[in-house]
């Protein structure tokens, strides 16, 4: 049935030439219809970003207390979720988990989208973006942000290079001989890139965690650590690694749902879910230990009474419970158990909860930290992003969707797609 519809609504001829042979894609008009809302959203985002760049950051609802708002939270969240790129690459190219070849292209694109989106937002977020490169010229090696800047820029370059061969596999681009040679050469480079990428990612996921963990002046965020790295450094790496695979899975499942196609074999999902489950369990364990040490030792030394953090509504102790148990332990158990994992519904729920947990973790560390007073006469303050911030945020999401949609349509992201389509056809013939 679906097959018939797609034959009726085939892409326009000019468009078809760009789509890989034997890849079944919707009609051009339908694709454009799908892109329209996202493009509008992107345009709104660009306009909001223009307002901020042209007139200054008073266009946002941030202030001297909430100097970081929605954008930094978004950056931290999408970079954590985008960790699937480096981690999948690491598993595939370094540890040689061959089955992950089925999702590596998606992982790379998700990573690319997340990182480039984060960098775009950061460029709007800083007050003087044209001076941002000064960090490379006069780096302060003690600063976590220097580490973040160096690693993110380097890793974005790595991701772009990793993205190139996927792009060059395009049916039309392949016809250019030099591109073909280039693409072949790149393939040999992949394990090296994956290694470099993993290393860079490892560090900047950590330094993003360190960003708040080193803040001696914010007892809510401050953590002891090893050497120059606070515990959040390692927790961020671990949590990002834990949700990376399930986020890749979620994205793939979403694409499957939107296109009503099977793209990846269930075994691959099982591998991703199991990996996440294992890492998440480990993360929850360490996070719990860290929380206990922080509440009972670190923050006591700083003079903050632990229960006082959670005395300010709406950030009660429920947030701690939600972060560690509801969105940590629970999904870890679901993903770890082969029985639950085998059921698609449970597996999806587990993946969603795990991702939400990490997002909440990033929220707590950024927004809740800033909301809590440190001076004895300061107030607990709240913050709400305004439309400029929200539009920029949504613009980045739209940018991601557009890049991914184009990639999906014109590039071959899923090596198993053709086989699965054939098997599907055969199965329908058999039945």
């Amino acid at each position, binding site marked *: 049935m679906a097959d018939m519809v797609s034959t009726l609504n085939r892409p326009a001829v000019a468009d078809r030439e760009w789509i890989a042979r034997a890849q079944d894609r919707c009609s051009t008009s339908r694709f454009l219809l799908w892109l329209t809302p996202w493009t509008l959203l992107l345009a709104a985002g660009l306009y909001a970003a223009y307002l901020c760049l042209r007139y*200054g*950051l*008073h266009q946002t609802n941030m*202030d*001297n*207390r*909430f*100097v*970081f708002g929605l954008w930094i939270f978004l950056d931290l969240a999408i970079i954590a979720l985008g960790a699937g790129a480096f981690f999948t690459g690491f598993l595939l190219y370094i540890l040689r988990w061959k089955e992950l070849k089925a999702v590596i292209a998606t992982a790379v694109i998700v990573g690319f989208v997340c990182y480039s989106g984060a960098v775009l937002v950061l460029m709007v*977020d*800083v*007050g*003087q*973006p044209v*001076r*941002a490169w*000064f*960090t490379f*010229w*006069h*780096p*302060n090696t*003690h*600063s*976590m*942000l*220097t580490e973040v*800047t160096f690693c993110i820029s380097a890793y974005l370059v790595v991701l772009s290079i990793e993205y190139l061969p996927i792009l060059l596999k395009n049916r039309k681009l392949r016809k250019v001989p030099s591109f073909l040679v280039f693409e072949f050469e790149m393939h040999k480079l992949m394990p090296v890139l994956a290694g470099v990428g993993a290393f860079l990612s490892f560090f900047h996921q950590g330094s993003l965690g360190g*960003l*708040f963990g*080193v*803040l*001696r*002046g*914010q*007892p809510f965020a401050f953590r002891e650590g090893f050497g120059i790295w606070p515990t959040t450094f390692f927790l961020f790496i671990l949590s990002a690694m834990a949700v990376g695979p399930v986020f890749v899975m979620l994205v793939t499942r979403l694409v499957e749902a939107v296109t009503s196609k099977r793209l990846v074999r269930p075994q691959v999902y099982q591998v991703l879910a199991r990996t996440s489950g294992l890492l998440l369990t480990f993360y929850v364990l360490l996070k719990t230990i860290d929380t206990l040490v922080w509440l009972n030792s670190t923050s006591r*030394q*700083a*003079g*903050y*009474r632990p229960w*006082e953090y959670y*005395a*300010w*509504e709406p950030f009660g102790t429920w947030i701690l419970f939600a972060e560690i148990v509801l969105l940590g332990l629970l999904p870890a158990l679901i993903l770890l158990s082969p029985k639950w994992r085998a059921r698609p519904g449970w597996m999806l729920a587990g993946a969603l909860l795990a991702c939400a947990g990490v997002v909440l973790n990033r929220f707590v560390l950024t927004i809740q*930290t*800033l909301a*809590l*007073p*440190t*001076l*004895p*006469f*300061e*107030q*607990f*303050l*709240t913050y709400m992003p305004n439309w400029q911030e929200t539009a920029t945020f949504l613009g980045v999401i739209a940018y991601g969707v557009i890049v991914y949609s184009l990639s999906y349509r014109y590039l071959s992201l899923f090596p198993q797609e053709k086989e699965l389509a054939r098997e599907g056809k055969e199965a329908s013939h058999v039945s």
Partner: protein
Amino acid sequence: MNAETVERAPRRYGMVIDLDRCSGCGACMVACSAENNVPPAHPQATERTGITLLRVVQVKDAASRGVAFIPMMCQQCGDDTPCMTVCPQQAVEVDKLTGVVEQMPQRCLGCRYCMTACPFQARFFNWWDPEWPAGMETTLNPGAAPRMRGVVEKCDFCQSRMHAAEDKAAMEGSREFEYTPACVEACPTRAIVFGDLNDPESDVSRQARNSFRFLERLGTGPKVYYRSRRPWLRTLASRVGAPPKKENGNG
């Protein structure tokens, strides 16, 4: 720091503020803004987006009906200075000669990471381009360059005044000088004492001995000290974080 690299004995500038003498008149805040070329508020600025390098905060004690005014500026942290260590591009430094935490707006990219690091809320971001009503730019202090939108600024113990004093001393061939920050000069009750903490004979050193600092337990080594005879104020100052109230939230 190599002792040979400095011309004279390094100073460690600090302040002692007697909270029992502060009348909350706000003269210091206005004098500070005039001295440092801080523009008047943008029409949309609020107490959360304005620039008050020095801010006088009113605090109250319900039990004793006590009221105190606390002048707060950059506390010039000396140990592990939180804002300095986090700045990605060395726009913040602690001066080896004066101990003053220096902020370089020209170098600043406006990431505001230093502001999250500062527990005293003593750093301010330029949310707007500075604007003065027509003609008022002629009243700018020649000793301080106005900042631009998108950078962070803070109190630097009136370096403009220090420069002027230094120049004047240099004219007599001397390297020794003393100066008074604008807020110290402006205070009608002489609540603020300023000087060199390295000099054990200075007023500021003597008064600092019997005083306290805010957020001392965070271990950032502020160089602004406070004094008060009022027990409730001393108790309050020893806290980290505001005592939670039943009614919180500010909108």
